[in-house]
């Protein structure tokens, strides 16, 4: 079991854990192999919900077909939820590895494993290709409409071949593949370590994937460089894809909605959901998974500061959007505010505001709460709910803003009434989220949820030391 820390001076006791690396590998691999009862239960439940989701999808398809996007608002939003979580979560590992923070070490694998759940993005996206109305106005073909109304407003200005549908799919797939590469590269040492001790399918998997990794200096350097490069590339692709998805499937569907900050808000919400999911997972692992010897509260504490930051960023960007639209008296802007904020989806918006800013902020502003492990996890959960509300508000709203051919109108001139989910929509939303959880749970059986090599590396650079009479943490910063 992990070594207990010496009592530091002041209130920082209980913050740091120093894993006992000698037994770590064995213990973690044991945990990975074992399948405790609650876990199997969770697998069963999520699996059932997953099936329900598929049922809902089929029913929806049978009811409405794939022609009119306005029937698929909730499907759109559930795709976006899964996309936000699974693409935002790996960023935690990438970003904090970039800043060389020691506290990220127990966190990185947990966040990278979301890449496997990210495979769902591709599956979920395929129907959307058929749903997105084409850019060129079909009425314009007969020469009935020329000029500004001949094409929808999109970021694909002159509509190159196959855009946006095919390119979006390529982008999503590329993002998922990049994330999987990062996972593979960062898990390679761990797989190599246990490729001989492991049994069954894991043995074959590990030995296949870890290739000829022997941990030579050269290999380590190559791995570090590769992780850095892939990380940078992943970050760029992520930002770009979220810009594309948010403007293709939300902004361009509301005629005349020209809001340059929306992609940024979307990305921040995605960070909310990703980091939230990571912290909730960490909390479960620490409290119930028996990983408390490896995941210190310091991880939660440092992550909570970042979380507080992005919570404030969210409200800041939202206000920047709101005040700009409110101040001008442009008809289209007033209508969009009415539609998305004050009138049609007012309740959803209030929930979104509460869960994305008010409640998490109220939780995170207290130092003792941030030092605990439940506080940040709670805030993470709240942020996830907020993200769900955000997606429902934006995507259901966009899909139903201008049904039929009004989508090619130039201005958003009258405000429609809200669209409530029917039973299939509920199935799809729950099922989609459950699917992500299901795949993630499977993934935790596949690979250790703790990045062994990183934690070991961290153990080299963190220790307790005496300065005169006091005892403090010593952090080494390797170049």
């Amino acid at each position: 079991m992990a070594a207990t820390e010496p009592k530091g001076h002041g209130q920082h006791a209980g913050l740091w854990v120093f894993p006992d690396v000698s037994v770590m590998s064995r213990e973690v691999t044991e945990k990975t192999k074992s399948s405790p009862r609650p876990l199997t239960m969770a697998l069963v439940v999520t699996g059932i919900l997953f099936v329900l989701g598929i049922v809902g999808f089929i029913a929806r398809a049978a009811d409405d077909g794939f022609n009119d996007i306005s029937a698929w608002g909730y499907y759109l939003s559930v795709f976006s939820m899964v996309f936000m979580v699974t693409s935002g979560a790996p960023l935690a590992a990438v970003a904090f590895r970039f800043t060389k923070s020691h506290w990220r070490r127990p966190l990185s694998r947990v966040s990278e494993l979301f890449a496997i759940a990210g495979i769902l993005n591709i599956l979920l996206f395929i129907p959307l290709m058929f749903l997105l109305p084409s850019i060129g106005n079909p009425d314009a073909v007969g020469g009935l409409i020329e000029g500004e109304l001949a094409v929808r407003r999109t970021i694909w200005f002159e509509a190159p071949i196959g855009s946006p549908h095919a390119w979006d799919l390529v982008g999503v797939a590329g993002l998922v593949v990049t994330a999987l590469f990062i996972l593979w590269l960062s898990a390679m040492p761990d797989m190599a370590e246990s490729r001989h001790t492991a049994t069954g399918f894991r043995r074959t998997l590990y030995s296949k994937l870890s290739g000829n990794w022997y941990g030579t200096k050269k290999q380590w350097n190559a791995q570090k460089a590769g992780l850095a490069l892939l990380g940078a590339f992943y970050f760029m692709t992520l930002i770009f894809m979220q810009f594309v998805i948010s403007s293709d499937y939300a902004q361009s569907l509301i005629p005349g909605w020209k809001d340059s900050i929306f992609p940024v808000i979307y990305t921040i919400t995605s960070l909310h959901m990703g980091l939230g999911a990571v912290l909730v997972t960490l909390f479960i692992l620490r409290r119930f998974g028996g990983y408390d010897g490896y995941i210190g509260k310091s991880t939660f504490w440092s992550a909570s500061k970042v979380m507080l930051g992005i919570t404030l960023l969210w409200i800041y960007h939202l206000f920047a959007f709101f005040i700009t639209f409110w101040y001008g008296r442009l008809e289209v802007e007033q209508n969009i505010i009415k539609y998305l904020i004050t009138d049609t989806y007012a309740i959803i918006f209030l929930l979104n505001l509460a869960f994305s800013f008010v409640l998490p902020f109220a939780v995170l502003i207290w130092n003792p709460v941030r030092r605990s492990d439940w506080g940040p996890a709670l805030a993470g959960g709240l942020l996830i709910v907020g993200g769900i509300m955000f997606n429902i508000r934006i995507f259901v709203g966009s899909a139903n803003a201008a049904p039929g051919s009004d989508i090619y109108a130039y201005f958003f001139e009258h405000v429609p009434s809200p669209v409530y989910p029917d039973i299939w929509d509920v199935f799809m939303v729950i099922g989609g989220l459950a699917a992500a959880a299901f795949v993630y749970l499977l993934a935790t059986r596949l690979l250790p949820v703790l990045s062994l090599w990183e934690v070991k590396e961290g153990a080299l650079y963190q220790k307790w030391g005496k300065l005169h009479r006091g005892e403090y943490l010593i952090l080494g910063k390797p170049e």
Partner: protein
Amino acid sequence: MAKAPILGLFETADNAADAGDALKAAGVSSADYDFLTDAPYPEGAFGEREEPHRLYIFPFVGALIGLTCGIMLTSMTQMAYPLVQGGKPILSLPPMAVVTYESTMLTAIVFTIIGIIFESRLPSFKQGLYDTRITEGYIGVLVNVEEDQLTQTQTLLTQAGAVDVVRNQGA
């Protein structure tokens, strides 16, 4: 029987810490001696006492005051001078939010500054026993003892390795 200050100057932090231990052993209460340094040593480096403070209250109080003032100023000025401008409501909230936010932050910060100065017991212009060598890297151990114990405290400090011991003139 009044208490008198005495200040021992040490080259190294370890000696100063030794002096602290010695004083504790000699039964001087931890409220009676202090370590004067020219740089922030991490808390407890000399095994000194914990310093409780209530600094965190100040920003909250300030923020509350600023919030109320901001809301009152912005809303009441709009009501007091009801001119329609650009079809906006007389009491338009989004602009209020901006100015109110600024006033909140301003008062919070000003209160924090006041809190810092107050909590660190400044300004204290009739400065007690002090030596300019402290800002040269020497570490001062300032002890308040009964006047009759001054001499033995001085010897105690010297044994702990004080390079110099300063006392008030006429004591």
